[in-house]
């Protein structure tokens, strides 16, 4: 039984499902279908919009595979001929830059086949995905492995060198705003002790979704809300300022401690509201910190 425990939390329009995985586990996202009288879109890329979603994990590997299949050979070729810069900055999926993206966390953790290291550096932004990822033109599938380690020799330096996070460790659009209209497979592996594929600190897989309370359209989401993430490295303090003009929500991949008048901590598996103008996180622990804010 690969999922040994699970827990759920809902608050502020954020839903978080936490799953602890032991052994091999495969999770499929099945194809999107158009409504009668509608079409998926003329981009030919085969991606459609969805509420913001991110699948967080603290360390460890994850394999992802998109199975285009022979019926979608056209989309398969289009994807392989596209580049990270095109896919991450396309205007096809929203009126502003916040709604349109594959989660930018994939830029940090996807192992590229040019240098076989985790992360797709800025200088590979115009490389085609056919150069960066494994693909199989017999079943029309594309596969890649992500290494979510935030700790270890050279990991911090590598992540900082990718050109994805700024000097304050901030990045835009960690949550995915689009989903393939084709089957997507996530695969994890773990031994019975929960240690897997190099995961240094076994922990839950966190499936997180955000849809603002009261909103009914994607335009409302993109116009009124922004999203970003901080990468917190162990051994470093990190300052997080409040953003935008309204509500600020935070959720994390690993426990972190902060110092606002008194020491306290934020744990994974539930969202928090940030009301302080600025928070200093103490050096212990690494974490991905997702920050959603009202513009």
């Amino acid at each position, binding site marked *: 039984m690969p999922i040994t425990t699970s827990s759920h939390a*809902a608050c502020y329009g954020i839903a978080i499902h936490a799953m602890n995985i032991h052994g091999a586990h495969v999770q499929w996202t*099945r*194809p999107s279908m158009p409504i009668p009288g509608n079409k998926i*879109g003329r981009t030919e890329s085969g991606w459609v919009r969805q*509420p913001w979603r991110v699948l967080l994990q603290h360390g460890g590997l994850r394999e992802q595979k998109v199975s285009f299949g022979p019926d979608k050979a056209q989309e398969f070729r289009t994807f392989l001929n596209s580049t990270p810069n095109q896919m991450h900055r396309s205007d096809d999926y929203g009126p502003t830059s916040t709604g349109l993206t594959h989660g930018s966390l994939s830029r940090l953790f996807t192992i590229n086949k040019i240098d076989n290291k985790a992360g797709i550096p800025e200088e590979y932004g115009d490389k085609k995905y056919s150069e960066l990822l494994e693909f199989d033109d017999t079943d029309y599938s594309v596969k890649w492995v992500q290494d979510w380690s935030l700790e270890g020799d050279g990991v911090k330096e590598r992540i900082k060198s990718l050109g994805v996070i700024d000097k304050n460790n901030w990045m835009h659009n960690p949550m995915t705003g689009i989903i393939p209209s084709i089957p997507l497979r996530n695969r994890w592996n773990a031994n019975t002790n929960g240690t897997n594929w190099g995961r240094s600190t076994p922990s839950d897989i966190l499936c997180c979704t955000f849809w603002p309370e009261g909103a009914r359209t994607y335009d409302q989401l993109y116009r009124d809300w922004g999203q970003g993430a901080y990468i917190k490295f162990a051994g470093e303090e990190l300052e997080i300022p409040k953003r935008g003009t309204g509500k600020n929500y935070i959720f994390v991949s690993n426990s972190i401690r902060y110092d606002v008048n008194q020491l306290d901590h934020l744990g994974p598996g539930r969202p928090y509201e940030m009301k302080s103008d600025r928070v200093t996180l103490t050096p212990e622990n690494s974490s991905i910190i997702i920050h959603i804010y009202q513009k």
Partner: protein
Amino acid sequence: MAKRIYIQSAEPYAQINSTCFVASIQTNQVGTKILQPVYKPDGTETPTKQNDIMRLIDGIDGWTSDGRNTDLVGMVSSTNEIGSSIDGALIEYERLIAYGHKVPTRSF
């Protein structure tokens, strides 16, 4: 909340003329297949692949006048729309609250 209807399969059924054919489609809400006329560009072959037929089914345009896709575009089939569409996200959230998973607010 409105229940959305989705195509689950589509195949060509009959040729009408050079710009129109009939597709046999099955939706998530109707067990039997239904026939739907579909327009196609003049002179092109009637598509046989499901994906190509779905591209041509074009009654209500899911695009705005400036060419940007609308909310109508980002839908997935009802069996797996949880979290992957607006309705799905709302249903998922309501279900978590109904099952007692709403956590108290906590701020810092």
